[in-house]
């Protein structure tokens, strides 16, 4: 028998829309550059920087900063911890969909 979803089951780091978008994109591409992510998700530089920092702090993504000539070049990829958290989040969504009615208060 499956347990009902509780507010704590929802990962607040991933639950935020922009961070969820970043993690979702990185879940299918082994690695994406800052510009690729920005364009794919239609984000501003500041928005992407701020949210990727939060994900980095949580250990969900790995940010690598290098230089191409004189230009800074940033790539991001999902860490194993991030992938697990994403899979857990998707499972939680599935559970809520399957359970039907209002099951959990918004934890964001």
């Amino acid at each position, binding site marked *: 028998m499956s347990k009902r979803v509780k507010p704590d089951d*929802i990962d607040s780091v991933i639950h935020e*829309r922009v961070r*969820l*978008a970043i993690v*979702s*994109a*990185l*879940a*299918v*591409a*082994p690695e*994406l*550059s800052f*510009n*690729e992510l920005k*364009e*794919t*998700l239609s984000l501003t530089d500041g928005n992407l920087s701020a949210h990727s920092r939060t994900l980095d702090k949580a250990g969900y993504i790995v940010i690598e900063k*290098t*230089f*191409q000539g004189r230009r800074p*070049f940033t790539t991001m990829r999902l860490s194993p911890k991030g992938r697990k958290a994403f899979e857990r989040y*998707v499972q939680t*969504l*599935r559970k*809520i*969909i399957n*359970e*039907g*009615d*209002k*099951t*959990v*208060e*918004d*934890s964001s």
Partner: protein
Amino acid sequence: MNRDEAQARMSEIQRIMERATLWTLLPGTAAVLGGLLVLVGCGVSYSMFRSLDFAAMLNMPVNKQVTFCLMWFLIGVAGVVLEAVFTSRAAKRQGISPTARSARVAAFSITPSVVVAMVLTVKFLMHTYPKPEEIRYIVPVWMMLYGTGVYTAGLFSIRPPRVLGIVFIAMGIVALIAFENYGLVSAALSFGMLHIIFGLYILRKQRQDRAP
């Protein structure tokens, strides 16, 4: 969070995954090679009827007309095959299925307008006495309909294909209104040069964005 919100989140996740997948699958090399093939086709066409006007094909003997049509048909098929091969290779490299929903959506988006262009082409060519003014429509019609297809496919992807689609449509309109007697030039500039520029842009961007 209720069921509807969870469902909306799942759809959003799916949409983003598709967009991210498409970005890595854009076949820059196929666009460059396809563009080069079109340029070769334009060169061969010019050597066949010594004119920049597509309607000049009507001055050739029937067997040459058939060869001419067959050549362009084969160039079209080669373009599709190149795209399929390079997209599959890119998908394999990225560990993505080449028949992923995103790739299918892109293919299905472009198919209707290409089919319409093919039907119109056949209609223009199938008269007992083909009319030069109709033959001159072939290139602009292909430019506009191909552009429409690429733009539609780009709606499920990122900006560059949408821009390519719009440029094709705009060039098609200009070709139809002002340059209908210069079909070979229009084909060379759009299906040839524009594809090469687009392919090189994608390749450069992918290289820039991949490597340090």
